[in-house]
């Protein structure tokens, strides 16, 4: 069983919003984006078009946990960016996913 780090545990308890939350963090990893750009970016990178209900359910949770923060904007579309905590949580989650992927591929190679 893989051990979870403290940062990795920041993304726990998101329920059905776990995957959208992770995709949002990945989308924000290369810079701030507003809701619509995130949806388009996620559709390109993961082939999933998040509905607005799912997108803002995940955004509200990420913001409440301090993993992302809104930037001031004069536009109606508020951009969001990763916080330091969000960056660490994303790194930790991606590391653990890569460890699982490497183990899976190694086992398949020996199967």
């Amino acid at each position, binding site marked *: 069983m893989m051990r979870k780090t403290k940062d990795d545990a920041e993304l726990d308890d998101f329920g059905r919003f776990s995957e959208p939350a992770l995709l949002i963090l990945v989308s924000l990893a290369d810079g701030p984006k507003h809701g619509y750009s995130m949806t388009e970016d996620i559709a390109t990178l993961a082939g999933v078009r998040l509905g607005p209900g799912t997108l803002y359910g995940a955004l*509200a949770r990420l913001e*409440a946990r301090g993993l992302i923060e809104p930037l001031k904007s004069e536009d109606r579309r508020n951009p969001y960016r990763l916080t330091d905590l969000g960056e660490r949580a994303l790194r930790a989650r991606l590391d653990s996913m890569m460890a699982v992927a490497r183990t899976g591929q190694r086992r398949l190679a020996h199967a």
Partner: protein
Amino acid sequence: MTWMLRLYPARWRQRYGEEFGTVLAGRRASPGLVLDVLAGAIDAHLHPQIQLSESQPTKGDTMTLAMLLRCAAGGPKLSPQDKKIARWVTIWSALAIAALEIGLAKAFRGAPAVMALVYWSAPALSLIYEQTAYLRQRSWRTQAFVLGGGLSAMYAFMLAVCMVKL
């Protein structure tokens, strides 16, 4: 489609309403989108603490929060099972109401009775959740009276508002 924003709690709309509306306006209407927005609205009603935690409370908010906490401390204790049942009753009610709204909107577009149903649905879902959670231990007569009476009174009020407005 942006009328669906009214299904979300006022505080949520205040925080995310504008940007949510922009994203929603850019999407083509579909049953999947309606379900997604409805599920999001139910989630926002069931987890208000997610919106409460993201802003510093003002002086007025602090008083309101203190009163809310006092009421919550004295309120009935709900078991996880009670909450689970109430959640599922609310979700299925939301789906049934949405299906009814879509059907009626197609048949009687713009009718005051249909508009009243749309406005009624958000507070109705909140009432359904509260009543199914807190009145579960009461007799079915009490439940039927409180829930049926509450829902009917709310619909009558919304209908009156729509008829006056139109």
